[in-house]
């Protein structure tokens, strides 16, 4: 039984070592994923929450950055951070790459810029330059695809 556990550890170790030498993807990709909503701010926030859940993620919470700043005397337009994620991703990275945990949950910021409502997220695939293992890169690609879909769905009118 102990020998079996030992072999399992060897296998995990070999996997981590093998994946850590995988080549990094190109670094000239766009760094931000962006969409401009055709709806007013409150409707955009509601559409964003629905889009997050429609794409298999769980909405965690909203950080009202504008509210915090206003309480301290700064007059700023709406600016919020929407946190969301997938518990399976948290569990996976906890084992495979704990250094990536500070980048979870995923975030989309929503702010007013003049007449426009902008939705913005950091492109997860940019992290591949720091975390080039193929299994984490595959996860970054999934996140990017899903965030692009979420932004598209949240920003477009029916």
């Amino acid at each position: 039984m102990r020998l079996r556990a030992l072999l399992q550890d060897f296998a995990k170790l070999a996997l981590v070592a093998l994946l850590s030498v995988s080549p990094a993807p190109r670094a000239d990709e766009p760094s931000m994923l962006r969409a401009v909503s055709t709806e007013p701010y409150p409707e955009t926030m509601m559409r964003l929450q629905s889009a997050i859940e429609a794409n298999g993620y769980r909405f965690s919470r909203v950080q009202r950055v504008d509210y915090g700043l206003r309480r301290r005397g700064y007059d700023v337009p709406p600016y919020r951070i929407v946190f969301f994620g997938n518990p399976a991703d948290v569990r996976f990275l906890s084992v495979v790459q704990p250094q990536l945990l500070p980048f979870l949950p995923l975030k989309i910021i929503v702010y007013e810029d003049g007449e426009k409502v902008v939705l913005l997220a950091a492109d997860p695939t940019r992290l591949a330059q720091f975390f080039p293992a193929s299994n984490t890169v595959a996860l970054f690609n999934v996140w990017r695809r899903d965030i692009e879909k979420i932004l598209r769905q949240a920003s477009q009118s029916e």
Partner: protein
Amino acid sequence: MYEVKNLIKVSAVAFWRIALRALLFSIALGVPSSFADDIDTSPVLVAKSPYGLEQTIANLKAAAEGNNFRVIREQSLDYGLVDNEDENRSQRILYFCNFDMLHEALAVDKRVGVFLPCQVNVIELDDGVYVIAPNPKVISMAYIDNSELAPACSRLQDAYNAILEEATL
């Protein structure tokens, strides 16, 4: 004689098992001997805490406040992603903010919000408690090509280092 041999065999297996686990976690976390070693290239700042999880969080709160930040929230990493009773309390996030610095950064570039608010993760593993934070200077350079942000990011990086060091000393 058989028992002695068996004991040696079991001890050896146990030793290698512990050693391999330690090595596995070290590789996975990439923990440097000092988190300042990779400060200009590492996407995260990492420190191993000599304290337990709750004490480390208390230390971090005090250190953040001591460095002119306001602690705005403490939660499990998977808060909102799982039911409350299923949250993993061995992985926590401490969020904090310096509102003057925040306002200044947002005035320069609204995109900085994708890295907000300031945070430190506290993770309990088999071999101890680790404190991990995104490295603001390295991450902002990778994502936002705006030289006007550089001074603020350098100050933030210094603050993160001070907070991590004070909390884990």
